[in-house]
């Protein structure tokens, strides 16, 4: 990208490097800075913001996006994308009322198993058949939503005590759903940063051909990644159904794929793969939630909120792009 005709002098190079570093710092940590600033802004400007109730509600609302976005971050790290997550959420949620007769644990197990199946299908299509991720997961998304509607039909309420308590009760003041999201985040972070799998994933996303030539198990890693994304989406669907005590196959998880992708990208993971930022992804999801909440707190109508989000997404990605350009 850089096209310098004459080599710069040492002093010039030094200042450029330092400025590059400063900008780089802002770009790498921009999402945290924005999150902190927006939080402070709300502390000052929004009434009743700094209450346990408000903060917990925000956390509860963001959990499905966080869980789905974590899986999406891994998929994007392999230079893929998963459009099926919203449909998988709906599918998992639609199964709960059908199998709840066998007990809460069984129903949840079957629901999560669906994520495993769709993930295996997506992963195999991408890794073995060689279909582009966006097309493979698009097909699963369309068909999956249809199957969810066929199975679920109308909105069904869930009354099973185990599942209801999963969605509404807390442990030491922290709601179960938030706890589960935190545990998943820790596990995904560990897998991405501290395991061979994580390193292989990043290598494949960076240069698939080279990874293949280096003898990495490309197919296995890619399939595993889509399976993880599918299972996480299914878990998010179960938690959302448990919280709302209902499963609505038409609405549940709609546009979730776009929210999750936005969170990942704003969190600093490039769509071109080869990099995964887990903490950034969580911060990205929190930032989008807080932006939306701020607009709602101040009675900004939905229309303006959406247009504001659009501009923010473009601005955030523009800053991210700058980082890649300056480092490449």
């Amino acid at each position: 990208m850089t096209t310098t005709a004459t080599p710069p002098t040492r002093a010039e190079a030094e200042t450029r490097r330092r400025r590059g570093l400063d900008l780089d710092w802002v770009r790498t940590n921009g999402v945290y800075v924005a999150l902190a600033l927006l939080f402070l802004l709300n502390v000052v400007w929004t009434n009743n913001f700094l209450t346990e109730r408000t903060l917990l509600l925000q956390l509860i609302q963001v959990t499905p996006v966080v869980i789905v976005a974590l899986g999406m971050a891994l998929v994007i790290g392999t230079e893929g994308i998963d459009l099926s997550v919203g449909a998988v959420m709906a599918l998992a949620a639609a199964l709960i009322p059908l199998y709840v007769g066998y007990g809460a644990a069984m129903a949840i197990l079957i629901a999560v198993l669906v994520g495993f199946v769709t993930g295996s299908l997506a992963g195999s299509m991408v890794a073995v058949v060689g279909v582009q991720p966006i097309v493979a997961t698009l097909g699963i998304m369309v068909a999956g939503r249809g199957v969810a509607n066929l199975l679920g039909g109308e909105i069904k309420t869930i009354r099973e005590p185990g599942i209801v308590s999963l969605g509404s009760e807390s442990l030491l003041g922290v709601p179960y759903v938030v706890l589960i999201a935190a545990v998943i985040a820790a596990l995904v972070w560990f897998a991405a940063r501290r395991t061979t799998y994580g390193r292989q994933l990043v290598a494949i996303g960076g240069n698939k051909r080279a990874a293949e030539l280096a003898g990495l198990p490309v197919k296995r890693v890619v399939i595993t990644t889509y399976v993880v994304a599918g299972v996480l989406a299914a878990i998010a669907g179960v938690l959302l159904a448990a919280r709302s005590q209902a499963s609505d196959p038409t609405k549940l998880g709609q546009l979730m794929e776009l929210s999750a992708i936005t969170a990942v990208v704003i969190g600093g993971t490039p769509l071109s793969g080869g990099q995964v930022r887990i903490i950034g992804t969580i911060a990205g999801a929190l930032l989008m939630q807080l932006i939306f909440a701020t607009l709602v707190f101040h009675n900004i109508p939905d229309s303006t909120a959406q247009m504001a989000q659009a501009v923010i997404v473009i601005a955030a990605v523009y800053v991210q792009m700058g980082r890649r350009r300056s480092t490449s």
Partner: protein
Amino acid sequence: MTTATAPEVTPGTTGERSSRARVAHLVQRQGALVILVFAAVAATVAFDSFGTQRNLTSIAVQASFLAVVALGMTFVIMGGGIDLSVGSVFALGGVLAAWGSQHGLLVALALPLAVCGAIGLVQGLVIARGGLPPFIVTLAGLLFARGLLLLITDEGSTTYKVPPGAAFREIAQGKLLGLNYTVWVVIVLFLLGGLVLHRTSYGSTTLAVGGQEDAAQLMGLPVMRSKVIAYVTSSLLAALGGIMIASYTSSGVTILGVGMELEVISAVVLGGTLLTGGAGTVLGTLVGVLLLQVIKNIINQVGSLNSNWQAVVSGVILLVVVTAQQWLARVERR
């Protein structure tokens, strides 16, 4: 959509190809056509009502809205991009047209085209000049256009009606030789699209950019201009689709177009256009659109089937067709 993928099957590969490879190439490109013909024949045999002129006209009219939008998407995808904003722009175009029809035909046509064209222009410039990924930019466009739509409809609570007797209604409700004008619009636009793709330098530039952008740049082709034109065209055609449906339903329905971008992309992919860019046909897209519409129609004909089967069958057919395309591409390469 990066270029770091497996080697592509380029159309113009020279050298002797085995007849097997040639057949594979043909089936890969025209797979959707085979399924379409098969489905249509089967449906004609199975259901008396399928082959009637009334039903076929209805299929053509219903398909025309999607077809117009898919034509724009074809050029975007062939140029290596993607446009997720078309569903929202489609709905926005419809609402603006319905509102504008109260002030005459000219306003009803010019207003949506101007507003949506501007959205396409901004998207194109941000993608071509800013170098941002099309996926993200048009995702933001999706949000923005939907937000604008909500803004002008009191958060979606107002549905503008086309006044009775307005000339605007004629666009989709008027007929020529028994076919609605919208169908003729589609025929003319697809012919034009084919000409532009195969007979103009813009068409070849788009394919070159989609095939290998760096090479196109080095050859001195107007890469940026070709990209901007593609996104503007896509938004204009999405707006036209909205105008057509507003005329057809005589109102600006605010909830239209959600998820339409994905339906449009499947139609384009079914038609044999590669999502990696650099190859594709305009006619294939029309076949893809018709295939999706015929599936819907057939499932409606089987009265006992839940309409959700449409989604299931469309999704499965998409997966099967792309798997077959991939497999045939491999056969062809051997």
